[in-house]
């Protein structure tokens, strides 16, 4: 399938076809408004990226720890998260392509323990699937695997790179530190893209980012409703929304669709689970990205709904204050440190990671928690003992298993299904009967 009237690399054509196919399938379904909005967003992103390529506009790569507002402050510059192709392949394309990219990176010498999305990003670079960047702007979050990928990307492309050092803690001093680095990063971006940074444009971008945040905050509230009004799988998409569409009207449209769909379904008294939900769980750590139908299975077979997960949990500490350049940079730094899923929970001490989980369990009235341990998330797996203890103390049963969020070869869907079904049968159900 051509993109913008031209033939492109097969990997991209497959995801484009996937997006369009799903849009055809769901566009008339009033209960798929959120999914349709994100599909439309993905298509718009691919169009934007290839439009930039065709027009010869500069492209700046960034990583999933770094939202694109600062890059969008430059007129005519296209931002591109280095994970984008993998995310699209797993969500709407064909996971076989992701596996091939993972294999390519490992064959090139990248260690197998590096995160599969980072390996796939390196595979994408090796395969010439990404447009040449003018430069790269990264944050050193959410994990060390990103560091490995970023360093590899820098070596493979030879392009200028700038790393924003996201510190350990979250206080005002840390916000100032990161904001200063952002300010210093602007001349770097200008130099390598040849485009001017506009504070007015940046203000508009931040205002858009705020609008998205407000819808997400409302949407987070609405998903607390019992029964959960919306399908489980949609929560996993929130981080993709933020990484690709922060500061973009498309992001606001997606967030609004999430919110509106949830609100209207509550008004109509509808539940995500046909026949009524029986169990609610907070899904923590990483989603099963290679098979979002997995969540449909949980709802249909187990009457289990995921009202919230770590990727969907949006904790706006504050909106970006757009009154001055300084406040905008501080606001963006605050968002990176305290709000962006994964960066918020993964980069610092274990406390945020555990506290957010317990808060979510309480707020979303979870019967139990699912710690889906993505094998490459060493920071998460390194904290599993403390996490379990905290869960026990809070009286929240916890299911823990390891899998790979982008590679189904590590743990099969059937195995994960068995873990969850058995846990409900052996732990959750008896506990409910006893109470």
């Amino acid at each position, binding site marked *: 399938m051509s993109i913008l009237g031209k033939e492109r690399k097969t990997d991209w054509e497959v995801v484009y076809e996937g997006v369009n196919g799903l849009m055809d399938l769901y566009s008339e379904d009033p209960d798929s408004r959120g999914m349709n909005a994100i599909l439309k967003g993905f298509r718009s992103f691919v169009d934007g990226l290839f439009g930039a390529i065709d027009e010869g506009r500069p492209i700046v790569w960034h990583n999933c720890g770094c939202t694109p507002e600062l890059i969008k402050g430059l007129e005519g510059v296209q931002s591109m998260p280095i994970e984008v192709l993998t995310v699209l392949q797993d969500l709407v394309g064909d996971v076989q392509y992701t596996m091939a990219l993972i294999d390519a990176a490992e064959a090139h010498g990248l*260690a197998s323990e590096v995160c599969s999305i980072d390996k796939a990003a390196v595979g994408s670079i090796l395969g010439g699937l990404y447009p040449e960047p003018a430069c790269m702007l990264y944050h050193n979050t959410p994990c060390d*695997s990103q560091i490995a990928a970023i*360093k590899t990307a820098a*070596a493979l492309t030879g392009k200028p790179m700038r790393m924003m050092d996201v510190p*350990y803690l979250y206080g005002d001093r840390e916000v100032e530190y990161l904001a200063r680095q952002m300010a210093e990063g602007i001349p770097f971006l200008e130099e390598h893209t040849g485009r001017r940074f506009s504070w007015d444009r940046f203000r508009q971008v931040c205002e858009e980012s705020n609008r998205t945040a407000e819808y997400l905050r409302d949407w987070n509230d609405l998903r607390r409703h019992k029964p959960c009004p919306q399908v489980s799988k949609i929560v996993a998409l929130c981080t993709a929304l933020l990484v690709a569409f922060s500061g973009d009207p498309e992001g606001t449209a997606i967030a609004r669709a999430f919110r509106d769909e949830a609100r209207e379904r509550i008004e109509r008294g509808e539940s995500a689970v046909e026949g009524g939900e029986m169990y609610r769980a907070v899904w923590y750590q990483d989603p099963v990205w290679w098979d979002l139908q997995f969540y449909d299975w949980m709802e249909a077979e187990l009457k289990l709904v995921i009202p919230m997960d770590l990727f969907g949990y949006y904790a706006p500490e504050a909106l970006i204050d757009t009154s001055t350049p300084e406040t905008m940079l501080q606001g963006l730094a605050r968002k990176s440190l305290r709000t962006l899923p994964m960066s918020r929970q993964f980069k610092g001490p274990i406390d945020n990671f555990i506290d957010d989980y317990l808060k979510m369990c309480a707020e979303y009235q979870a019967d139990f928690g699912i710690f889906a341990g993505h094998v490459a998330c060493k*920071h998460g797996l*390194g904290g599993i003992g403390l996490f379990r203890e905290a869960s026990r103390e809070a009286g929240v049963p916890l299911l823990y298993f390891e899998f790979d969020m982008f590679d189904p070869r590590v743990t099969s869907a059937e195995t994960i299904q068995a873990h969850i079904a058995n846990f409900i049968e052996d732990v959750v159900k008896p506990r409910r009967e006893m109470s």
Partner: protein
Amino acid sequence: MGKSEILGIMHNAIQKPRNTYLDQWVAEGRKVVGYYCTYIPEEIFTAAGFLPYRLRGAGSDSSSEGDAYMSARVCTFVRHTISLALRGELDFLDGVVLAQNCDHIRRAADLFRKKVKPAFYGFLSIPRVPKERLFDWYLAELRRLKAEMEAHYSIAITEQNLEDAIELHNATRQRVNKLYELRKREAPPITGQEALTITVAAHVMPRAEFNSLMDDLLADLERAGGNGDYRARVIVTGGVMDEPEYLAAIEQQGALSVAEMVCFGQRSFGGPVESGPGDPLERIARQRFFQVPCARMVECFDEQFSELMKRMKEYKADGIIFQRMKFCDPWAGDAHNLYWRMKEAGIPFLSLDREYRVTAAGQVKTRVQAFLEQMGK
């Protein structure tokens, strides 16, 4: 004392968490502070009158306590060190100072804070880009740590204390660098296994005693003949490495390690802290922050590579053996990049993944033998 006696002392000092020097220090009522990484300057502890003690898993036969809290995807170095702490084998520590060196150590820090509960817990947020633009933050972190230590221990760490500490640690650096100089000889008077024993010992015993032992050792080595009976000279690089027996497995095949650019090896020492005038803490910070960077640092791979190339020439090395702890992501990126840069430069390069405290001698020997044959040695 001669070489064999001194090496025997140092060998004994690194076998278990405690050693006789440490016991003596503790018996005198003096304090010991543990830390993991070279970006945490030992001079601050010395200036406080404390013994800097670099955390390692010496003598740990099991990581079971660590395994109870951490997945097997966390590196074995971290799981062994935290196991020692959880078993109470590091109870002689009067405090620990940790940092977000990597994801694994970050979680070990949580366990220290929440489970081990040392009398003093300090934490540094160390920038991951060793550029001037972030130096102020690093220095501010050190100032904060100093203030926290002063408050907790009710002490004053004066400028003179810091100057004295600089002098003591520079004396160590000077001796270790002299040891490394001798290894440039055609027939080095010391093996890699022995050299690593020495540099590891420096991290777990009082520096004054270490320096004194080094004076005797260096005098002996200056006079000694060397070992020219090797098939190839190699530089061993990569992440943490405090097990001389691992180098022994390499060297038994005829690959003489002439320099160890690893944590606990030469990378932990570097050049001297500059002498005054000026704020001594800032001079310490500069020496540490702008040292030869390790893999946790970004935007500096060319510097790392250049340093390795420089040492290849200086030590007349035939090849590089890179070792990395399984599951270490920072070094995973560098392993990839080093492999390709070495290939481009035509430098023989062997990459080994390993587990802590498991030498897997058979596997290492086979890989090293093949490497030597590949080099035509």
